[in-house]
């Protein structure tokens, strides 16, 4: 009897520590339960026939990791899936478009100096560009007010003029696409006016941003390494005081053209730092900063899946699955007590411990709980009950054959053992293959179900047993009728 109580004390200690674990460790809730965005990114090989190497995927991940950190979303996570995919989770983020913009860019930064004798051409293109921007601003303003465009015709004429100025042929494109086409044309022509240099984003050590003195716009600050600082000095020296500009080109697009003052004629801009001012808003300056600081992507990436779940939808999901889990558990409890009496009552204890241990393990590993994961947990309750049912049925069988209670219980456990093991192992096998081969939430489901199967083995074979033995050490509970109704007992005993 002392031994039984020793085991019982151990069980209680386990339960208490599991309980403490649950309280003290935070749960990892999946995005479907807490709200947020999930982006799946696919890395593209430069050559379609080529496979992405794992080093390449790692390199892309480290660049993206730095960019994601720059976004400043708390608890974001980025992990690789398969050979060419990355999954980015941004809890709480409701506008994935911002993240998508920052992540997808290659962020290849170049510093180029303007070619000789292209001043007038540059000015003409810059003028066209500002006209295009004005049209866009005007259209945006009228769209925000949800009013009709009054000067629609005038814009059409302007666009047409610009097209003629750039020598673009007539086309059937709509106005929006026409403006896009003009912008692209202007941009490529501006980039054409610069000659490449050896100074690129790889010479950068850091990037930052600050508000310009006029307080209306932002600028991005750059710091080069020593080598880059020297290159920058010689580059600026060569064009200082001339009418040639310094072009800052990102992903083949000119984001800023700056003039270098007369005073840098002797040594160029030294000190290894520079600023880009290109009419940035706080937001766009931050995006550029994030991209530059993260470095350039070795391979292009594209976004293949985006999920956004609103926070109240997530809370609603938790509430609903909690209700389902609790209701399911209590129905099972009623079922067990009405069919197995005292044993059923003990099984409820064992099942509650089962649920508690499960949750403790989720917090300990940690398992990210998703909606399918919760479903897996609810389902594993069914399996945990099965083990108890197998045992109690055997106990009943033994009692019907006229065995004593204690002996029936012991035999019941030992006879149910092989069925329990076989049943659990077959489920475990499918869980393991699902976990290794499945993706995303299939994995979450397999993880919770697999953990459930393991713990169910433990609770059925030890918790139920320890509890049953403990209760049986009290003489008042050691009655056959606590397990089986009288009319089912063999005659000689009643």
């Amino acid at each position, binding site marked *: 009897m002392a031994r039984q109580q020793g085991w019982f004390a151990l069980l209680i200690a386990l339960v208490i520590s599991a309980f403490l674990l649950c309280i003290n460790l935070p749960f990892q809730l999946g995005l479907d339960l807490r709200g947020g965005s999930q982006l799946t990114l696919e890395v593209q090989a430069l050559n379609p026939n080529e496979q992405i190497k794992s080093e390449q995927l790692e390199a892309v991940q480290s660049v993206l990791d730095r960019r994601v950190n720059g976004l400043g979303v708390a608890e974001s996570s980025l992990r690789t899936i398969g050979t060419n995919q990355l999954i980015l989770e941004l809890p709480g983020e409701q506008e994935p478009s911002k993240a998508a913009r920052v992540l997808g860019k290659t962020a290849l930064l170049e510093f180029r100096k303007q070619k000789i004798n292209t001043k007038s051409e540059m000015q003409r293109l810059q003028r066209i560009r500002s006209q295009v921007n004005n049209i866009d601003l005007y259209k945006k303003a009228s769209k925000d007010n949800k009013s009709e465009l009054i000067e629609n015709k005038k814009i059409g004429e302007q666009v047409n003029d610009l097209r003629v100025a750039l020598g673009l042929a007539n086309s059937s494109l709509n106005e929006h696409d026409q403006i896009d086409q003009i912008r692209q044309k202007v941009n490529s022509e501006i980039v054409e006016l610069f000659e490449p240099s050896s100074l690129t984003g790889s010479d950068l050590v850091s990037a930052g941003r600050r508000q310009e003195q006029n307080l209306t716009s932002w600028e991005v600050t750059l710091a080069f390494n020593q080598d880059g600082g020297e290159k920058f000095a010689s580059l600026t020296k060569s064009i200082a005081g001339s009418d040639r500009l310094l072009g800052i080109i990102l992903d083949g697009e000119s984001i800023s053209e700056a003039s270098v003052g007369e005073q840098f004629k002797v040594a160029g801009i030294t000190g290894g730092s520079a600023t880009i001012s290109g009419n940035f808003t706080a937001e766009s300056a931050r995006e550029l900063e994030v991209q530059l600081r993260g470095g350039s992507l070795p391979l292009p990436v594209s976004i293949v899946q985006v999920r956004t779940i609103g926070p109240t939808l997530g809370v609603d999901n938790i509430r609903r699955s909690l209700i389902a889990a609790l209701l399911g558990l209590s129905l099972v409890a009623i079922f067990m007590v009405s069919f197995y009496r005292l044993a059923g009552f003990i099984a409820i204890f064992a099942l509650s411990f089962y649920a508690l241990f499960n949750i403790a393990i989720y917090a300990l590993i940690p398992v990210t709980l998703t909606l399918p994961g919760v479903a897996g947990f609810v*389902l594993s309750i069914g399996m945990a009950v099965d083990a108890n049912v197998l045992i109690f049925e055997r106990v009943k069988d033994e009692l019907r054959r006229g065995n004593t209670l204690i002996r029936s219980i012991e035999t019941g456990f030992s006879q149910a053992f092989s069925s329990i093991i076989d049943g659990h192992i077959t489920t475990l096998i499918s869980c393991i293959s699902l976990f290794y081969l499945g993706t995303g939430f299939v994995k979450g489901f397999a993880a919770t179900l697999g953990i459930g199967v393991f713990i169910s083995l433990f609770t059925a074979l030890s918790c139920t047993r320890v509890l049953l033995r403990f209760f049986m050490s009290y003489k008042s509970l050691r009655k056959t009728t606590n397990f089986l109704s009288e009319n089912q007992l063999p005659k000689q005993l009643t």
Partner: protein
Amino acid sequence: MSFTPKNLNVKYTFNVSRNRSKVWLISGFAVLISFLGFFFSWTNQSIGFPLRPGFDFTGGTQIILERKCDSECNKITTINISEAFNNAKFSNQETSQKLFDARIQFLDGYKSLLIRSPELSPSESKEVIESIEFVAGPLEDGGQSVESIGPTLGAKLLQTTLISLLVAFSCVAIYISIRFDRMFSLYALLALFHDVLIVCGVFSWLGIINEVEVNSLFAVALLTIAGYSVNDTVVVFDRIREINKQESRMNFKQKVDFAVSATLTRTLYTSGTTLLPLIALIFFGGTTLYWFAIALALGVVVGSWSSIALVPSLLTLRKEN
């Protein structure tokens, strides 16, 4: 200690070997109906597939919006939404074209709105939501979900799911043939295919009649059903093996019958206790898990049938030990 059925008082509530032709008829009929479902679904022009594939297999964007209404939501029609799409000024011309193929559906009595369209970029989705807000607004702040999935990802998802299904099956078959015997593992696999087939069949009919789609959650449900089916069957196998060791006087048929009778209560109880949480999930789990829970519940019922009736009836085909 003798171990005979008489001693145990087991009532032959269900005699498998005597009823096996009935069992086969029922199972065969169910499988036939399932195949008919696949056939009709495949030849159906709007489906063209044995089961109606959900958007995570075909690719596209699904937007679910919750409307903010006090007690009752004012009724708007899908035509209102389409008009809103037509009037909206999207910054990308293609957006309107994509929305031309969009499917619009109201859920929960006009409270939520589901739009499914070809794949939209995050910024496009945002504009689409804004255009809807114009007619269906105000919208509940946190009650939106946007899911976009590229077509290649969907195909890959299907592929990996099928591979994991096959690997799981073969591993389980190997385990059973080691623990029991090769015929047992063959029958268990047969039962598993039978269960999965029938659940798929029901969903193909649901897809034809009720436009129910299968998604990757459904694939997860199938895997679970497969696991459950085997688990259930193994318990019967275990009992047969046990009786085989203890009883020499019975012939194999009798042993099978006895094993089924002895495990019948357990199988029914276990199915019952697994069904209870699933039923709770069906009624309270919300739309996301609704069809998932139904598929699982169906699988539990079919799985119990195959382990009580189908597998033992196949086993009785064998004459000797």
